[in-house]
C-alpha cells in the first residue's frame, strides 16, 4: 500500500465516522436519564456506541475505497491478483474484535452488578399486572394505579402477573423487566429527577397491549412522605376495601373502560356510561346485567367487542361484598 492510498482510506474513515457521529450526537437518541441506574445504562450504551461507530467507519471506509479505487476499467478483462489469504491478517481481525467484545462484556457486567444493588432498607413496592393494567402495592398494604416514588431512595419493584406475561418499562429509568405469571421478578431504581414518566408494557399481552400504560411520578422525598402518610387514595380491593369507587379504581376497570364518574377514558372495552343501553339490549335488569358482565364477561358482548378480551378473573379476585358495592356504584353513576 502506498502512502497515498493509506491517506485516502483514512480520509474515508474520518468522513464515515463523522457522519455516523453526527447522527449519534445530533439526533436525540435517549430520553434524559431519571435514575442512577439509567446514568450507568446510558454510559454503557455510549461505550458500545463509540466502538460501533469506529467499527462501522473502518468497514465503510474499506468498502467505499474498494468501490471507488478498484472499479474495473472499460474493456479490461484481466483478473485481479490471485491472493488466496493471509494468516497474519486473519489472526489480527479475529483477535481485535475478540478484545472489543470482551471489553463491552466487562463494562456491561459491571453495570448490571451495580444496577442490581438494592442497598439496605430499600422501599419495596409490589407491581401486580393483569390485562391491561398495573397495580402498585405499597408496604402499608395500600394499592394504587399510579406509581409514586421518592427521589434519591432505592426502590425495589417486585413484579408479578395475574394472567399473561407483561412488562414494566419506564424509558427514562433505563430498566425493564417482564412480569411473568408464577414467578416474581424485580428491578431496582433510584430516581434522581422529579417529574412524570410513562410506564409502558412492552410484551405483547393481548388486544389492549398498545394501551397498557400507567404513570410514574417522582416526588421530592418530603412531598412523598406527606403523601404516603395521608395516603391519598382508597385502600385496595385486595386489602379488603369495599367502597364502590375504590374497588373500581383498585381493580383497574378504568384502564379499559370509559366511565365519566370514575374519571377514566380507556378505550379497550365498551363504555360504562352506556350500561343502561347495553342492559336493555341484553334484555336484563341493570344490576343483574352489570353483575353478570363482571363475573362472566363473555355472555353478553357490546356490539363491536370480541369475546375473551375482558379478563374472567374478577369472579375470584373480587370478594362478594366488593362486587356488590361495585355493581351499585356503576348502576348509580352510569348515564
Amino acid at each position, binding site marked *: 500500500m502506498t502512502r497515498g492510498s493509506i491517506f485516502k482510506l483514512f480520509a474515508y474513515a474520518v468522513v464515515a465516522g463523522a457522519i455516523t457521529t453526527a447522527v449519534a450526537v445530533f439526533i*436525540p437518541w435517549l430520553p434524559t436519564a431519571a435514575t442512577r441506574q439509567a446514568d450507568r445504562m446510558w454510559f454503557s450504551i455510549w461505550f458500545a456506541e463509540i466502538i460501533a461507530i469506529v467499527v462501522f467507519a473502518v468497514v465503510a471506509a474499506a468498502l467505499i475505497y474498494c468501490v471507488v479505487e478498484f472499479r474495473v476499467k472499460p474493456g479490461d478483462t484481466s483478473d485481479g491478483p490471485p491472493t488466496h489469504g493471509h494468516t497474519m*491478517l486473519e489472526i489480527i481481525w479475529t483477535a481485535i474484535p475478540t478484545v472489543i467484545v470482551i471489553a463491552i462484556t466487562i463494562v456491561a*457486567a459491571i453495570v448490571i452488578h451495580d444496577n442490581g444493588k438494592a442497598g439496605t432498607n430499600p422501599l419495596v413496592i409490589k407491581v401486580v399486572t393483569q390485562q391491561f393494567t398495573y397495580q402498585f402495592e405499597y408496604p402499608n398494604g395500600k394499592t394504587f394505579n399510579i406509581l409514586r416514588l421518592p427521589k434519591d431512595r432505592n426502590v425495589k419493584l417486585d413484579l408479578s402477573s395475574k394472567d399473561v406475561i407483561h412488562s414494566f418499562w419506564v424509558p427514562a429509568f433505563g430498566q425493564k423487566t417482564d412480569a411473568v405469571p408464577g414467578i416474581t421478578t424485580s428491578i431496582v431504581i433510584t430516581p434522581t429527577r422529579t417529574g412524570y414518566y410513562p410506564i409502558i408494557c412492552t410484551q405483547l399481552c393481548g388486544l389492549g397491549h398498545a394501551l397498557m400504560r400507567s404513570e410514574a411520578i417522582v416526588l421530592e422525598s418530603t412531598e412523598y412522605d406527606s403523601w404516603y402518610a395521608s395516603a391519598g387514595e382508597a385502600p385496595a380491593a385486595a386489602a379488603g376495601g369495599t367502597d364502590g369507587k375504590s374497588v373500581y379504581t383498585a381493580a383497574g376497570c378504568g384502564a379499559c373502560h370509559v366511565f365519566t364518574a370514575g374519571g377514566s377514558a380507556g378505550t379497550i372495552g365498551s363504555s360504562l356510561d352506556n350500561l343502561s343501553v347495553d342492559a336493555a339490549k341484553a334484555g336484563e335488569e341493570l344490576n343483574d346485567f352489570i353483575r353478570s358482565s363482571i363475573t362472566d364477561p363473555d355472555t353478553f358482548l357490546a356490539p363491536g367487542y370480541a369475546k375473551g378480551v375482558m379478563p374472567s378473573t374478577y369472579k375470584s379476585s373480587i370478594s362478594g361484598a366488593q362486587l356488590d358495592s361495585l355493581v351499585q356504584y356503576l348502576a348509580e353513576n352510569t348515564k
Partner: protein
Amino acid sequence: MASKANHHPSAARQRFGSDWRAGRITAWLTTVDHKRVGLLYIWTTLGFFAVGGVLALLMRAQLATPNENFLTRGSYNQVLTIHGTTMIFLVIVPILAGFGNFLVPLMIGARDMAFPRLNALSYWLFLLGGIVLLSSFWAGHGAAQGGWTSYVPLSTLHMPGHGEDFWILGLHILSISSLVGAINFIVTIHNMRTSGMTWTRIPLFIWAILTYAWLLVIVLPTLSAGLTMMLLDRQWGTHFFDPVHGGSPILYQHVFWFFGHPEVYIMILPAMGIISEIIPVFARKPIFGYKAVAYSTVGIAFFSLLVWAHHMFSTGLPVGLDSFFMLSSMVIAVPTGVKIFNWLATLWRGNISFDTPMLWSLGFIGVFTLGGLSGIFLAAFPIDWQLTDTYFVVAHLHYVLFGGSMFAVFAGLYYWWPKMFGRLLDERLGKLHFALVLIGFNVTFLPQHFLGLLGMPRRVYTYRPGGIWEVYNVISTVGSFLMAVGMLVFVLNVVITARSGRRASNDPWLADTLEWYTTSPPPAWNFDRLPYISNARPLRDVRRRLEAERWK
C-alpha cells in the same frame, strides 16, 4: 440406489424425457428433479413474500399517524403475527432451501439430490404448511395473535378460537418439510460430490447449506416439541406451561429460543454463502481466506446453539446465567466480523464490475454491518434491558433479515437467474430495483432505532400523538412504500425479460464454480461430463485450458 448407477444414459434420457422443460402442468406436479423442485420453491416463496409484504404495508399504513383506525387492534395483532411467521417460515428459510435445491447438485457435480422423491415431498409439505398457516385468517376469531414467538400463557389460556391451532399445525408441517429437506442436503453433500471435490474444494455456498441443514436437524425438533406442548395445553388440558398447576411459561421460552436463535443463523448463513460466491466473481479474484470463511460459518453455527437465553434477559434469570449468555452472544460477533473482513479483502485490489448481483452484495455488506453492530447492543444484557421488545429490536432484526438475508436472496436471484431460466434479467431495471429498495429500506428502518430508544414498544397498533414519534413513523411508512415500488420494478423485470431477455451462455459472469459448466438452463441429468476437480475454482481452470489451446 445401487441399481441407478447401472442405468445406461439413453435409458436415463428416456426416463427424463428429451426436453424436460417443455412440460405440461403434470410434469411439474410430479417432478422429482432437483432443479424443478428448487424453482417451485423459489416461485412459491416469492408469492408468499408478496403476501408478507402486503401485510407489512398494512401495518405501516396503520402506524403512519397516531390513533389511526385503518386496522382494528385485533386484526393488527393477526397481521403482525402472520407477517413475521410468513417472512421467516414461508419466505427466507424455504427460498434458501430453493437455492440449495437448485444449486447443491450442480455445484458439487451430482446428477440429483440423494433422495429425489423426499425432496419433492419436502416441497409439497412446505406448500401445504403455508396454505394451512395462511388459512388461519379464516378460522373463528381470526388468525393467531401472539406474534411469531407466540409466548404462553397468552397463546394457551388467553387466545380463544382456532387461529392459533392453525398456526401450530402449519408450523408443524413446515418443520417436517424443512427437516426432510435438511437431511437430504446433508446426505447429498456428504455422499454425492464428484471426483476431486474434497471438503476444501466445495464452494462456500455448499459449506453454508451444509451448516444450515445441520442446524435445522438439531433445532427444528425443539420447535416441534414446544408446539406440541402448546397444542396439548390448549386442546388437551395439560399443564406444561401453566404456573397454577406446576408448569412454567419460562420453559416455553427456553424451548422456543433454543430453536429460535439458531433459526436466525439458519436464515443468514446461506445468505452469507451466496455473498461469498458472488463477490469473488465480480471482483475477479479468489475468495480471500477460503478456510477462514468456511470455519467461521461452522463457528457461528456452533455458538448459535449456546446463546438462546439472550432473548430472555428480561425474564429474571440468575445474573450468572445472563452473563454466560451475554458472553457467548458477544463471541458470535467475532466469526461474523471475520467474514466481513474477508469479503473486504476479496474486494481489495480486485477488478470490480458493478453488475446487479454485485450491487446487492455490496449493499448486503454495508447494511448487514449496521445490523450486526446493533446486535452487539442487544447482546449486552443491561443494554438489552432498555432495548428489548422495543422498535429498536424491530429495526435490528430487519437490518439482519431483510438487509441481510433478503438482499443476498436478490443478489442470488440476479446472479443465478440466467442459469435457472436461460435469460438474464435486465440490468437497468435491476439497478433501479436495487436503488429503490436500498433507499426505501434505510428510510423505513433507520428511524425505527430511534423510535425504540425513545420508548416505542413493538407490536402496538397505535400510539399517542405528539413529539418526534410521529415524524419517525411517517418517515418509516414512506420508506416502506418506496420499497414496495422497488419490488414492483422487480416484478416488471421478470415479466419483461421472460420473453425478451438477453439469452445467457453457459457462464455469462465468468464465474468459477461448477454450476456454470453446464448449459443454461441445465439438462435434466445436469452434466454430460465432468472435469476432475483439482481446486475450488474448477471453471477458471477450464477457461485457462481453453485459452492455452487457442494459442497453440
